């Protein structure tokens, strides 16, 4: 009874949303044109990277802050019965282990390429970080990397580096008048610095979300 009522209401809701979409007038603000007009001073050649790290840089700053916060809460809440997670090497498949040993260096290479490509085509810190995290998860699933129990000092530094470097750059640029308002001459180098640390930290945080829980 309740079930069918929910399904009917949901269908009506979906229909209303779709009718609203079809009836929507064109946007009054032409954002793509504004982005294209300012690409020259952004320091990069790819519009998505320019939006992520220059025009809407504070969103990305807050986002890496949110990720760090999520990881800290995960560390605080996760049950910690097993102090040192056992390495599951004996049970792991030798084919998988060999494949992981071959794939992980290539994944690292792909991550660096994605990071570098972000300046002028599709790619960037997020994709690079995701590939790094996937490499760590693959190593863990193949039994080559033990799960993480509690982060040591260097791991904590790596996890926080992206946020801290980004925050330092944002604070240093406050003299320019606004948060993350890059001077056009320095924009490319600063964005590369922020992106490189972001990629490492994102990779560690995303890998940590998996490895601290396993």
């Amino acid at each position, binding site marked *: 009874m309740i079930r069918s009522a929910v399904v009917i209401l949901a269908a009506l809701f*979906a229909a209303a949303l779709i009718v609203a979409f079809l009836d929507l007038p064109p946007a009054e603000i032409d954002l793509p044109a504004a982005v294209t007009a300012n690409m020259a001073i952004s320091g990069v050649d790819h519009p998505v990277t320019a939006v992520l790290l220059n025009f809407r840089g504070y969103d990305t700053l807050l986002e890496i802050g949110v990720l760090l916060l999520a990881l800290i809460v995960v560390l605080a*809440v996760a049950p910690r019965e097993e102090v040192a997670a056992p390495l599951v090497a004996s049970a792991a498949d030798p084919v998988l282990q060999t494949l992981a040993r071959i794939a992980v260096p290539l994944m690292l290479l792909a991550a660096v390429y994605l990071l570098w490509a972000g300046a002028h085509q599709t790619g960037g810190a997020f994709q690079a970080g995701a590939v790094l995290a996937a490499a760590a998860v693959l190593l863990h699933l193949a039994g080559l990397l033990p799960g993480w129990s509690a982060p040591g000092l260097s791991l904590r530094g790596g996890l926080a580096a992206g946020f801290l470097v980004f925050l330092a750059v944002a604070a240093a640029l406050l003299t320019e008048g606004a948060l993350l308002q890059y001077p056009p001459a320095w924009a490319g180098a600063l964005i590369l610095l922020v992106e490189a640390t972001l990629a490492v930290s994102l990779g560690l945080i995303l890998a940590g979300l998996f490895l601290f829980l396993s």
Partner: protein
Amino acid sequence: MSTGLIFACGGAILFVMGVAGVILHDHLLRRILAFNLMGSGVFLVLIGLAQRGGVPDPVPQAMVLTGIVVAVAATALALTLARRLFALTGGYTLPKDGDE
């Protein structure tokens, strides 16, 4: 009807399926999955509506890129809380109103 609009309508359907899933299912894992479905629907709506004129808009694309990573972190956080609940109560369902 442009491709972007089809994506947006698909996103709306996904979102509503997610809402119904959150309401109908008791098991927390299913609720987390339904919540992810809602998030994916919102991402599709954002991207699709912005490019319904045929021109891709980099601003919502960048927002969705951040959103995907935040959604992964939020899912991991939700799974951690669900595991904690399992460790404390032995079940994956929230207590109903009334029973204590």
